[in-house]
């Protein structure tokens, strides 16, 4: 029996998926997420300091996946919910990341809305649960 995914590749990505581990370029100071071999901003820095991203950010853009538009690993979720939102979040530290938005507000998603990262099951394949981050409307002010 084998696996559909590359185990070393998945294994390497665990810190970034589970807790948003980013890297700060020691040359230009910009924060890369997901981590890179060479800084995507200065294109020369190859040494980094690992930093823990806060998970807080704002909605930069979003879309709603519906009507059979979900990739196979998310089809069960799409069947259950009918539709689900995907957001492009600009994190406090700078990077922009794509993830699902859970508990979307009834009044609708707005650009600039504050969100925070939450630990969820992303999908399940070959009986293996892939955990990772999604976002939810910010609750820390409540």
């Amino acid at each position, binding site marked *: 029996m084998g696996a559909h995914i590359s185990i070393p590749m998945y294994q390497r990505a665990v*810190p970034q998926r589970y807790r948003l*581990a980013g890297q700060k370029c020691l040359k230009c100071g910009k924060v890369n997420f997901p981590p890179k071999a060479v800084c995507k901003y200065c294109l020369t820095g190859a040494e980094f300091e690992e930093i823990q991203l806060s998970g807080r950010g704002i909605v930069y853009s979003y879309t709603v996946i519906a009507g059979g538009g979900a990739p196979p690993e998310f089809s069960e*979720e799409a069947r*259950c919910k009918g539709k689900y939102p995907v957001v492009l979040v600009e994190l406090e530290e700078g990077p922009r990341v794509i993830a699902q938005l859970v*508990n979307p507000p009834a009044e609708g998603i707005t650009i600039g809305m504050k969100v925070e990262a939450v630990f*969820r099951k992303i999908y399940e394949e070959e009986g293996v*649960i892939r955990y990772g981050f*999604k976002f939810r409307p910010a609750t820390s002010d*409540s």
Partner: protein
Amino acid sequence: MMTKNIVSYGVYLPFLRIKRDEYVNALGSCSAAIKEKAVMDIDEDVITMAVEAARDAIADVDISQIGVLTLASTNFPYQEKVMTGTVIEALRLNKNVLTCQHGNSALAGTEAFLAALGMLEQTEQKYALVIVSDSLSADASMDIEHGFGAAACAFVLAKDEPGLEFEGAYAYTGESMGLRYRLPGETSVRDIGVKTYATQAYNDTVKNAVWGLLGQLGRNPVDYSHVILHQNDVKTASALGKKIGFNEEQMKEGLLFNLVGDTGACSAMLGLCQVLDNIASNDKVIVCSYGSGAGSHALSFKSTNQLLKRTKSFKAMLNKKQYINYIQYLKLKRNI
């Protein structure tokens, strides 16, 4: 002598709730005396809830000083796998923390708590993290399913740091057959459906644990400001509390069943979290768990200092919710 204290705690309640009325409308009745209960979303399980509760608990704690992690649930997503590993990665804990997992009954929550107290002696580090996360499941056709909820809570225990000081524990365990159990490979809890026997076993076991603890510490029920008993429903727990000698005032803040449902291993520990939101200095607390089969652990605490301030109050979490209907509930449970 070293004291061990709860210095911080965290809670996670799923955002989704279903009201009792939904059961009544769909099935004609609801066997559980709930007002509403918490329901996990399709992408949640006890591990995701555990991580969220733990993040809440460790927000202001130096995690490099955590040397012990204990994790409890009756409903882990894998029957075999080291799930503390997932939690360690998600929380960025030291990989050399001493770990253990507890399951198999609703007693798992206090088992994990007691284990952490013992394991703290085996580490140079200052803190232990206890996480109790539970979600119960039974077939939609079973009456017992109606009350099954979900929640998680987490506690940071510290050596010699003021907070909620652990004073002692008393256990009472014996055989009580066929009341609530689950066979290997099954996802649904079985229940013999004879409430009289279930209540009798609960009453005897919990009463003996609490009385044993009071005797051991030379105390009376009036010495306690708060008492939190495991809840299979509010009525039975309240009636037993009164029989032991506690009054409504002492019990009211620990009663959560009617708002979140039966949270299994979490039940009594979650009640403790709500109590801790408003605890006063010198208050004494009894927490008593129960697992069908049957066993009970009574734990005694004394408040010696303000606990770490939390950003979210328990009440705020209870109020942050979205209601779903029974069809949506069945879809989330993958029944349809």
